[in-house]
């Protein structure tokens, strides 16, 4: 029961944060909306006994990444107006129409009982263990290849940053080299 209450509250918080990110006109508000969504998600992780993931979520995403976002926003300037006029005519109406169709379709399926959420039990239903030790064990046994590939992904990101930003700037003003 407590779990359900927390889930509903935090789910609503996550959604509200997400909506704020999209709808807010001021980028700082968008960033704060993202913060709300991230923290709400972290609470949901705690409820699921994934303590380490929750801590990482708060420290890395809410702490470091979001601070970086805010830095960039401040750097560019908070009060710069974005040009939000659309180039495709009727874009909003089209999207609203599509969304309505999807929502109606979902409602029809639900009302006919075709759409009952019955998550599989059994194979996934073991009690999760969210300690650092358990997570580390998982990461470096079952998912060891994934960890290695993630390292490659970071390499690609670093190489890309150098190729796109660094060299371009040095090509534009060779005296800086």
């Amino acid at each position, binding site marked *: 029961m407590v779990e359900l209450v927390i889930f509903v509250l935090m789910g609503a918080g996550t959604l509200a944060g997400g909506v704020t990110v999209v709808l807010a006109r001021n980028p700082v508000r968008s960033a704060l909306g993202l913060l709300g969504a991230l923290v709400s998600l972290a609470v949901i992780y705690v409820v699921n006994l994934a303590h380490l993931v929750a801590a990482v979520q708060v420290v890395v995403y809410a702490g470091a990444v979001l601070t970086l976002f805010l830095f960039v926003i401040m750097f560019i300037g908070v009060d710069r107006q974005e040009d939000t006029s659309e180039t495709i005519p009727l874009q909003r109406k089209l999207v609203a129409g599509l969304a309505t169709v999807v929502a109606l379709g979902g409602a029809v*399926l639900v009302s006919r*009982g*075709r*759409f*009952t*959420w*019955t*998550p*599989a*039990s*059994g*194979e*996934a*239903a073991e009690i999760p263990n969210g300690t650092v*030790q358990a997570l580390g*064990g998982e990461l*470096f*046994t*079952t*998912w*060891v*290849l*994934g960890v290695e*590939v*993630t390292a*490659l*992904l970071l*390499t*690609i*990101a670093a*190489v*890309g940053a*150098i*190729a*796109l930003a660094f*060299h*371009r700037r*040095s*090509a534009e003003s060779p005296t800086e080299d």
Partner: protein
Amino acid sequence: MIPEAFPEIAWSALAPELVLVFGAVALLLLDVQRKPGVKVLWGTSLVILAIALALGVWQWIAATPDAEPIFGGMLIFDRSAALARLVVLGVSLQAMVAARSLFAHLGNRAAEGLALVLLAAAGFILMAASQNLVMMFLGLEMGSIALYILAGIAGDGVRSDEAALKYLLLGAVASAVFIYGAALVFAGTGSLDLLRVAGFFARNLVLSPAVLLVGIGLLTAGLSFKVAAAPFHVWAPDVYQGAPAGIVGYMAAVAKVGGFAALARVLLSGFESFRPDWAPIVAGIAALSMVVGALMAIISSDIRRLLAYSGVAHAGFILTGLASGAQGSSSVWFYLAVYTVQLVAAFSVVSALGGAVSSGSDLSDYRGLYRRSPFLALVLSVSLLGMAGLPLTTGFVAKLGVFLWAWRGDLEWLVVVAVVASAMAIYLYLRVIVIMYMQSPADDDPVLCDRPTSWALGAATAVTVVLGVFPQPLLKLVESAVYL
């Protein structure tokens, strides 16, 4: 705590990918330490690709038909994955041989560009061999992110930046869709391992599979984006048009191979028992892709947009084979193997004619290409005829294969649509050939292409024609590449 279940680490099975990855790192270090010329870097990357390809061939020969999953079920190098590897490495080599002038233009960014090419190839091979949805996602991201960067690497104009940014933003949405689908599959079956997912369906009767159906739909949508199938294709023309000409062929080819391999594995290996549910959707995407691709290609006035839209149509043809079920996957592989070669060859011609870092290639530039360079005109013609599926080219055998399997898979209506779309496509390819051979050029300057490019183009043309006349060897090769 000593972990009780340490997965078997089968590095030797990953030998070609390891060569690519270490080769990429070595290239970067070589660039930092020695600052060699672009030619040295480019040559080194070709050697790396050739070694990887040789190892890939060796693994193909050594592979047994019933391959075991490795890394605790993360990867499986069965026949289809081993073939995907050969195709990715083969077209990468073909594209890179022809791309010397691109890297010469990139100057001090050449090493980064080459490293990204090698890493993207490794990523798409991993994606094709993934048996686990998380692993598949990592491979997809590894390949895609490298491609986003490559799209903007020339950075010489607004178009190139626009292409890279569009590709990144839409690609990110597609990745999110894919990962949401993977989450729903996990929710519905309790596993991300496709083999275990299939096993779950063998043991359990899923009475209300709505969660799973939505999951399958999202996975299909995410991967359809990567292969540029309609209606998830809108990024393709802009990206193909804006990205540097020398790399577009590579980008399009490897993304298609990785995407289709992943799609085939998800649908045919994981969700084969749901075929009655997903086959109509895949068939619908196929029909839409073929018609939209052919129609839009006909009204394109830029050869890159034309090739992009024709790529959408080809995605439709390949999906036609996929929709017919597991037995049809050999025809899918034949199609992918021959189409990517033609695609890379066509873009190599575009690059040779318009400049390796150029953005946009108007069709009027191709007027009278026959007089300016008979060789390039011939290569482009053969590639286009192959794409059109004319007899005596590989394209004909490929189209015939997917149509036959779709017919046997009770998708007669789809075959009818496909034949009509092929007929429309013939017109658009012939239009380009008419422009090249029957109109007089604006200027008579001969178009020169460097020697490696001519080798690559000559080889691609030879493959298209020779395997078109004698397709048996390749047909035998793909015969065993069936998802079970």
